[in-house]
């Protein structure tokens, strides 16, 4: 048992670090450091292209498709350093989700048509899964695609669709048959967002961010050629896709970066003659979350690099999501609490106040915005039920 990385791995880590330090634009780093999870399209694409020049924009892809051909350790270290350095998250829907599905289930033609735009960063995607009455219970989805000629005609809507307002395409699940079990009769389609009949309505989160949308389909025509896999066989692809997120669900690197900011803030915030760091009650909380984060970090490493490697990880991954989101929320809430009265400043208060690089109104936004993390991508309740059934046999 040895928790040190190999010399080669450490050399790779140093390379990644150097690259980020030399190439991450300040404006982007600053935005990520303010805990903004979804960046403006321009920033996402700019960073993606910077990574692309190095061959690192889609590292998990097969090497001949533009991937980096890394080991598990390298993937782990890359994502960790990206996160620790406040570099943007990878473009989620195209790079991380759609592309592997195309590679696994798509035709040669589909791969040739869609992968280059994802790799270059010129085409952004969004994911059409959730519906107003199908959130956690995804298989209940009802948005219908009816075959007509060489196309499907889609009617209905998708909701809580992240980035639909900046995406060029949507991949998603649609109901092509209602007769059997609800998991049957679901088809996986790719849709050009410019197709007539699509309208996108912003859904504002309560703290005032526009990340998600409701997408309405009014007789939207999608050619058969845009279907991945067979008709009514979309559920298997969705399950494959949802199982992809092995790395990073714990968001340890991001939390370490946020925690570092919190600790700097505590040292910088004057309280009377001293600073907030002199308050043992507050610092107990910081210590508590730092320990929790370390426990999660090692747990993730054990799952990834333990006997059997990352392939051995099944429903255990659910616990990384549960604890990862709880800890993120905890850190960002403590940061907001630390600010006291200053944390009450609203979005339009003019950003005149900055303490240790933290803008109070951004800290408030982050605290509120991250409440979503225990809800999205399978709520933490769903994750617990998964563990209860798959791991504990209850």
């Amino acid at each position: 048992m040895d928790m040190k990385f190999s010399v080669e791995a450490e050399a790779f880590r140093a390379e990644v670090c150097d690259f980020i330090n030399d190439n991450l634009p300040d404006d982007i780093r600053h935005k990520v450091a303010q805990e903004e999870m979804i960046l403006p399209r321009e920033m996402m694409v700019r960073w993606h292209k910077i990574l692309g020049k190095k061959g690192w924009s889609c590292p998990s892809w097969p090497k001949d498709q533009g991937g980096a051909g890394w080991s598990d350790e390298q993937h782990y270290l890359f994502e960790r350093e990206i996160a620790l350095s406040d570099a943007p998250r990878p473009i989620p829907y195209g790079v991380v989700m759609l592309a592997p599905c195309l590679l696994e289930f798509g035709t040669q033609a589909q791969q040739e048509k869609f992968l280059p735009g994802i790799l270059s960063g010129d085409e952004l995607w969004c994911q059409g899964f959730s519906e107003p009455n199908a959130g956690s219970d995804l298989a209940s989805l009802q948005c219908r695609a009816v075959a007509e000629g060489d196309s499907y005609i889609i009617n209905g809507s998708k909701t809580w669709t992240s980035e639909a307002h900046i995406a060029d395409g949507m991949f998603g699940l649609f109901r092509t048959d209602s007769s059997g079990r609800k998991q049957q009769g679901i088809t996986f389609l790719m849709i050009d967002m410019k197709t007539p009949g699509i309208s996108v309505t912003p859904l504002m989160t309560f703290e005032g961010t526009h990340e998600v949308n409701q997408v309405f389909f009014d007789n939207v025509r999608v050619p058969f050629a845009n279907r991945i896999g067979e008709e009514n066989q979309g559920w298997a692809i969705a399950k494959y896709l949802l199982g992809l997120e092995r790395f990073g669900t714990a968001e340890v690197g991001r939390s370490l970066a946020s925690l570092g900011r919190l600790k700097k803030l505590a040292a910088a915030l004057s309280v009377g003659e001293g600073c907030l760091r002199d308050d043992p009650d507050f610092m107990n909380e910081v210590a508590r979350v730092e320990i929790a984060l370390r426990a999660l970090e090692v747990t993730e490493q054990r799952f990834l690099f333990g006997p059997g490697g990352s392939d051995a990880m099944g429903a255990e991954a659910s616990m990384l999501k549960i604890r990862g989101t709880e800890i993120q929320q905890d850190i960002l809430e403590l940061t907001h609490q630390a600010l006291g009265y200053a944390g009450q400043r609203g979005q339009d208060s003019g950003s005149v106040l900055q303490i240790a690089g933290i803008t109070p109104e951004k800290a408030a936004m982050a605290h509120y915005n991250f409440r979503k993390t225990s809800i999205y991508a399978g709520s933490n309740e769903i994750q617990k039920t998964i563990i209860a059934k798959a791991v504990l046999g209850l």
Partner: protein
Amino acid sequence: MDFTFTEEQQLFRNSTRRFLEEQYAFEKRAGVLEQAHGFLESHWQNFAELGWLAMPFAEEYDGLGGSPVETMILMEEMGRNLLTSPYLATVVLGGGIVAEAGSEQQKSALLPQVGSGELKLALAFAEQGGGYDLTQIRLRAIKNDSGYLLDGTKTTVFYSVVADKIIVAARTAGQAGEREGVSLFLIDRDAAGLQSRDYRTQDGGSASDLDFKAVQVPEEALLGREGQGFLPLQRVIAKAAVALCAEAVGVMWAISEQSGDFLRTREQFGQKLGSFQALQHRLVDVYMKCQLGQSLVYDVVCALGQQAGEPFGPELLRKVCAAKYQVGLDARSVGQEGIQFHGAMGMMTELPIGHYYKRITAINSTFGDPRFHLRRYRELMIQDQETVA
């Protein structure tokens, strides 16, 4: 021992609730918040007519002589309906400190105007870098021939942007951290040398940071006696903290009820969400927190009533800390559970739940957060034990 409201109190609750439900239904809230300061100026006169603005003041100042129970009722209803207004700033803080510290003449001049709705007040006490400690006052008031010259800054002055006059806690002697040497001044909002940076707050309200650059005020601006401002300030902030606890309890009950409605009606996996036992037990936890918070507010409100006029003893201050700690902590967790119960819907701005949570967060960072009040409670508890021993 009696936990029933008087008939008048019951009527007051009913009229308050009816008005708020009609005029401040959640669907209208976004529109109201779009107003300049998040508040319908035209409603202030309604508040006066409903008796809200004169409620806590003595009858000799045209007040209604209401007890802390009436304030509790009002704040709880405001919490339930998420009213955003200068009520706390003007009546509880501004009027409150005039009533506590003002001379007979000042009270006679100001309180009737507050009660009638003609005069809005704000209280400037917090300073950047002072945390929640009321003794951390650095803004200086130096006596000169014309009165006093004020220099320094104040932060997060609630609704000073709509106030006619501002009461400022300043230091005429001593150092930050000391109780002695704090004085209160009543100044016009447009006094020369006073600069205001106004902003909206996370919960939809308004606040300002004030910059005093050689602001000259006459001697009559002194509210009460020079150097004796700390005790009235402490009393008013304690009362206002209790008022916020009552508001938080109103918020908690609303979240509990709305979450119950959601779980009873929303389906997932072919069942009502409310049939899932894990959620059932968590809603029970929420319900219990509402009841326990209500109890701590009753406890301190009754003690406030019994100690009217007397200096606040450590026993009462402990009850304030107990309520502000426990209600704050529980309201936070109730708010988080409320969002979680609602799933993705809970994150949407169209639902009240997120806005309740923002209000809870603001309440918790006003007059001391739960950690601050647990520490103060602990200190008072140990002092008490040492005194007895």
